[in-house]
């Protein structure tokens, strides 16, 4: 039976992650709580809006209302890495070689490990940023498409066009596909080798959470009363294929998805705080957490693949141990 070790905090959880196997919970007020032989806290931003896990450096990078970027580590430090003046930093991503990308207003910034910061100005607001898995390349979600920049090299960016407002972005783990979330209830994808479009629509709500399954064979998404899992193992991605619908419920929307690190299993968080795990092959479900106080906003599996840290919009966070 899975067991839940709860951690009741006060406020919206922006990110629940493991840093050096220690569960960390970053809240919208900028405090980062960790369960390391007791409950400890460090203050990062004055108002946190975005956070990204950086597995290579076992740190959480955060951006916020104060226009600053922080790096939080398991040793309880929160170090300021950079900023964007008075503008809110609304999106952030961690990349290879210690690079961090963040968006503020109409600019995307890339901070390299040596501290140099490059700015990429856009005509419209930078809504989302992501790093490609290899090389130093970022993708920016923007109005009417996405832009790919190469921060280490001079040269023109690659523009990917699709009408509408694109609010978030992710690269497939093999680097072959770019997928954006949109203001309307849909995802859009591009196959980078030939620019082919992929329309993934039919969601009843906006998609706010995406997670790639092991080896990038599937992309799980929120935005429906089930986790919608698109097949990406074929050459052309999900085109012409129906997605899996896992953990379907009649009474609650999925708000967060997090794929298992090595198996084709996804942890599914719902708006009422329930968490299920579902296996792709046979759609078998296991209840991991009963409904709580708020919508699940963030989840992460640990390296042992045994625990899941989760956070909610109401602050009732915790750690699920599936093997206990």
């Amino acid at each position, binding site marked *: 039976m899975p067991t839940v070790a709860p951690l009741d905090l006060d406020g919206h959880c922006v990110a629940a992650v493991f840093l050096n196997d220690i569960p960390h919970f970053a809240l919208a007020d900028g405090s980062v709580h960790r369960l390391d032989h007791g409950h400890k806290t460090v203050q990062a931003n004055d108002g946190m809006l975005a956070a990204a896990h950086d597995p290579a450096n076992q740190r959480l990078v955060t951006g916020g209302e104060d226009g600053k970027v922080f790096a939080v580590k398991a040793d309880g430090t929160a170090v300021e890495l950079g900023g964007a003046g008075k503008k809110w930093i*609304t999106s952030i991503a961690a990349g290879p070689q210690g690079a961090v990308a963040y968006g503020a*207003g109409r600019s995307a910034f890339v901070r390299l490990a040596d501290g140099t910061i490059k700015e990429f100005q856009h005509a419209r*607001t930078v809504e989302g940023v992501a790093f490609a898995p290899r090389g130093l390349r970022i993708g920016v979600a923007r109005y009417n498409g996405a832009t790919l920049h190469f921060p280490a090299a001079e040269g023109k960016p690659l523009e990917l066009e699709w009408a509408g*407002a694109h609010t978030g972005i992710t690269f497939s783990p093999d680097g072959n596909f770019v997928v954006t979330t949109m*203001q309307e209830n849909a995802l859009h994808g591009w196959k980078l080798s030939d620019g082919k479009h992929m329309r993934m629509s039919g969601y009843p*709500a906006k998609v706010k959470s995406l997670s790639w399954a092991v080896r990038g064979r599937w992309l799980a998404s929120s935005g429906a009363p089930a986790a919608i899992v698109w097949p990406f193992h074929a050459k052309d991605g999900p085109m012409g294929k129906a997605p899996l619908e896992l953990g379907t419920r009649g009474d609650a929307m999925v708000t967060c998805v997090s794929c298992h690190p090595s198996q084709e299993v996804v942890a599914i968080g719902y708006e009422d705080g329930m968490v299920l795990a579902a296996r792709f092959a046979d759609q078998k479900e296991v209840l991991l957490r009963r409904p709580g106080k708020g919508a699940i906003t963030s989840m992460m599996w640990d390296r042992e693949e045994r625990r899941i840290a989760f956070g909610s919009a109401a602050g009732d966070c915790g750690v699920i141990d599936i093997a206990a």
Partner: protein
Amino acid sequence: MSEASAPIPVTVLTGYLGSGKTTLLNRILSENHGKRYAVIVNEFGEIGIDNDLIVESDEEIYEMNNGCVCCTVRGDLIRVVEGLMRRPGRFDAILVETTGLADPAPVAQTFFMDEDVRSKTRLDAVVALVDAKHLPLRLKDSKEAEDQIAFADVVVLNKTDLVTPEELRDVEATVRAINPTARIHRTQRSAVDLAEVLDRGAFDLKRALENDPHFLDAEEHDHEHDHVCGPDCDHDHEHHHHDHAHPAAIHDVTVQSISLRGGEMDSKKFFPWIEKVTQIEGPNILRLKGIIAFKDDPDRYVLQGVHMIVEGDHQRPWKEGERHESRLVFIGRDLDAERLRKSFEACQAVPN
């Protein structure tokens, strides 16, 4: 559950450059009115007050991918409201300041079209500041100045000390010609009573009617605002302003308002009609407001709309002796008044 708390009221402040918007904003931020405001502005620049809750945001108009050109939202507002609402205990209300040239429609529509924003906030009122001295000039060179007035629930007619009583009367008549349903307040140096601007519930038609039961009733309006003549009477005969005594003031007005009156409506006819009208004429309709009496329905039905978006609900039972009358006001451009009137009347349960 913190997310389920009462929706936060949002006031939208529009007004052309120099209309006194910043002065009013500074008053709202500095006066002791017992409420804490989060303010979304385009530039910190002119606001002389230090406040953590002033958020600088680039106006981003996003067209929705649904083939409708008037279905636009403010993308930046969606993001900022989402961020603010993650820490809701910090403020009681939100104020959105638009740039002088802004079209107010995308701001208003954001509060209806985005499900996240809609679930956490409610549009309280669109307030337009108007420079009494320069309005005639503004109307000559900008469609936006007119749109802002047409859109407003509350018009603050500012800088009245810079005009003669005659000029003021003309300007007010012009405002009334553009928007017969807005509340108008004459002020100097933006010194309007803040209670007349904030927490009005003007977009909540039920409350708007409680506050001002006659707000769709043009004759009552005449009294309340002490009009000498004004083009208020426009609502009944829209060609009237051609013979008006102050043609120069009204000349640059391209917005028209059409007031329709009828008896009890057949809901089976009315709803498809209003849907069709807003679908087809949506781009030309800036605002619509109405009170509808349906046959065999004991309750008054109130509705209002922005472009193609229409919302309606039952308000309260008809009072004893109250006339079961339907009234609908369209504010827009290039609307065929006669066709609207005929098709509206055809929705009556007992046709004329």
